[in-house]
């Protein structure tokens, strides 16, 4: 083994990449924590007057609110430095200049107009650092008649079409999990940032990237959109039904609110499924022989399947079905997910020590790189925890200057 290969093994893919992070809530923080996990250095800029939104998001340690007590903030901000800087202070501009000079990438989701006001829009940033890459995230984009309208993932998921497509056709629309449109955006933004880093290495140029929840969300609904633009059909929510599989749904199992899912696509899979459930008489009815027949009689079919599943636990159904290669799974609660043997094997959930939360769970990423380990360097920062380190060590301010600016209220 030569020494070069040895040293590569210790390298993280993003080591040396410096990110200045003004973003709040979910989409920005989620993507910068991922960059951090692969070695990038992230400075999260907050202020004691306007700290990150999720610092006040429940749940809190012992149900007691506090700016360093939110589990939401802790999971979303693992591995970052936190500094406080009052952007409204007249002397903040000189500090911003040094931060930007330090950075390769700036991430922001300011309300429309605020970036310009603080000197943090792309035009002003590139004057400070010509090859800077700026990622601006927004609800509906920086231009257009609705660009100024405020929105967060919890209500944008309705505008972006997800609630319309969640639930039952004869009922009100239901709400998908979380701030859904916040959660699905980061992967696109990470891909874009890495492409921009590659571009800068090849051309020496930075760039401004704009991403919005409104424009990334349709990427998850394209078949339904094309069904409208090409066929004029407006798709609506359909429970768990699928045009290409039947049975395809969640079925009640033994126990309190326990469910399994089963998905049968091909006629061959149907035959296997029938064998697994012991080939009861009704499975011989020729109307169930083909996918189209099963689709036409699906309400009846679902009842017959459930009349079988209720006698077993969801885990038993999954194990039996999977033993014969039929797609099936347990509808897992969060407790089941945390205890899931497959996710344990992948170390999906890891533990970190946080000064105020104690030991808490942090999530791994959903991909593994065979040569690069994910590294959670430190827990999420307390507000302003790294002021002295960042200002003096990373930016190289003298002690005197640091103290002077501190006393002047710049770091509030």
């Amino acid at each position: 083994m030569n020494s070069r290969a040895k040293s590569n093994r210790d390298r993280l893919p993003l080591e040396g990449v410096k990110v200045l992070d003004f973003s709040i809530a979910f989409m920005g923080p989620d993507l910068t924590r991922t960059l951090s996990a692969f070695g990038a250095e992230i400075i999260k800029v907050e202020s004691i007057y306007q700290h990150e939104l999720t610092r006040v998001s429940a749940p809190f340690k012992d149900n007691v609110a506090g700016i360093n007590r939110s589990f939401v903030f802790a999971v979303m901000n693992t591995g970052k430095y936190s500094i406080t800087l009052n952007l409204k202070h007249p002397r903040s501009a000189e500090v911003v200049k040094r931060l930007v000079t330090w950075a390769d990438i700036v991430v922001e989701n300011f309300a429309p107009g605020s970036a310009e006001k603080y000197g943090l829009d792309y035009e002003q940033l590139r004057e400070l650092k010509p090859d800077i890459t700026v990622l601006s995230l927004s609800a509906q984009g920086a231009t257009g008649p609705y660009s100024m309208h405020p929105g967060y993932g919890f209500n944008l998921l309705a505008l972006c079409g997800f609630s319309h497509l969640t639930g039952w056709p004869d009922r009100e629309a239901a709400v998908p999990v979380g701030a859904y449109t916040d959660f699905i955006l980061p992967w696109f933004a990470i891909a874009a940032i890495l492409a921009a880093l590659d571009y800068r290495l090849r051309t020496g140029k930075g760039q401004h990237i704009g991403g919005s929840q409104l424009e990334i969300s349709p990427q998850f609904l394209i078949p339904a959109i094309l069904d409208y633009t090409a066929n004029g059909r407006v798709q609506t929510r359909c429970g768990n039904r699928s045009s290409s599989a039947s049975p395809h749904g969640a079925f009640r199992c033994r126990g309190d609110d326990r469910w399994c899912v089963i998905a049968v696509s091909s006629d061959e899979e149907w035959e296997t499924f029938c064998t697994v459930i012991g080939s009861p008489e009704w499975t011989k009815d020729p109307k169930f022989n083909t996918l189209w027949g099963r689709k036409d009689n699906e309400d009846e079919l679902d009842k017959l399947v459930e009349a079988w599943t209720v006698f077993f636990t969801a885990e038993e159904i999954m194990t039996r079905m999977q033993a014969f290669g039929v797609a099936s799974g347990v509808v897992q609660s969060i407790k089941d997910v945390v205890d899931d043997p497959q996710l344990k094997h992948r170390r999906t959930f890891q533990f970190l020590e946080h000064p105020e939360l104690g030991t808490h769970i942090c999530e791994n990423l959903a991909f593994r790189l065979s040569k690069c380990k994910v590294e959670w360097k430190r827990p999420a920062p307390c507000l302003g925890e790294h002021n002295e380190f960042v200002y003096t060590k990373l930016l190289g301010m003298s002690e005197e200057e640091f103290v002077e600016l501190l006393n002047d209220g710049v770091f509030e």
Partner: protein
Amino acid sequence: MTDEKGWMCGKILSELGADVVKVERPGGDPARDIGPFYHDIPDPEKSLYWFAYNTNKRGITLNIQTRRGQEIFQQLVTGADFVIESFSPGYLSGLGLGYSQLSEINPKIIMTSITPFGQTGPYKDYKGCDLVAMAMGGFMYVCGDADRPPVRISIEQAYPIAGAEAAAGSLIANHYRILTGEGQHVDVSMQECIAREIFMELCFWDALREIPVRAGQCRRRMTAYQRDIWPCKDGHLGFRILGGRFGAETLQALTEWMDTENMAGSLKGMDFESLDMSKMTPAESDELENTLCQFFLKHTKEEIYQKAVEKNMLLCPGYTPRDLAEYEQLKERNFWAELQYPELDTTIKHPDGFLRSSEVKCQIQKRAPLIGEHNEEIYGQNLGISKGELAHLKKEGII
């Protein structure tokens, strides 16, 4: 080389400028049989589902189960930067085309594998699909009405989420390759992708050992389940009752509007700055909710949205795919790409690139490939296979 599980990964790379070649089995990817279809005519060349996620790509057919097919595939890998696949774990290794084998041919290759549960572990050979990932990842347990079975989102989400995570992972691996010259294997689990989407539930479990459950239009917040989806005259709205810094302005404006129609009820005179939903009794919050519901039901989602925009209220309409396709904001921003479909003698409106860059165009330029559309171009021009041999390969069912 992926089926529907991984299409999004290549789609993202293609919009960032990569030349993505879709390798299908002779006769085409079986996922071409999934609807909806153009004008509802089932045909592997008319699947809108296929069209949706394979734009910008070139397409070839290749039978990698034959010796010659494997040789050709290895030749392709020699000149490639990424291989994206979604076969069952171990399948490609069995054909001599696994990561360790391909990395001997091309040490710089990045292989990205997208599977239901990942490459290793007790469930690695389990069969999965979107529904199974949504169930096993914990999404469904908290989604849907309490008196009915748990639901997924009605259109596949685990696939595009896994594809998008795969693209991010592949490009992180690419950055490592730039630093070190080495490729590697990227292992993506659909179940794990979904488990990451339910991180609010994870927080409630970790902090309070509480298991959030499905509650229709409501979600676990602070100390109670609060409504996020509200019915209105012709559909629904996305809205949450919030006091203080984020919600007071919205509630104030709403109350003033409701009052002009004598429908403000108990909202009138309320101090929204100090409103704390977690301190309300269930009877009080129900009353508040009912008053708002009564008012929303009198108005259409567009009426309410226009007023929300005018008064800066944190509130959105619940849009359908048609509403999105006709939304003025997206039109103004030139979000739609009219793609040519000469074979169908038509154009179809697609969502264009997922973001904007000041330097490069992140765009969709062409429709998804037909079956084997670029066989001659890629096998002939890129690999230098003669016309005669191409005809032979076709006859033998290799391409």
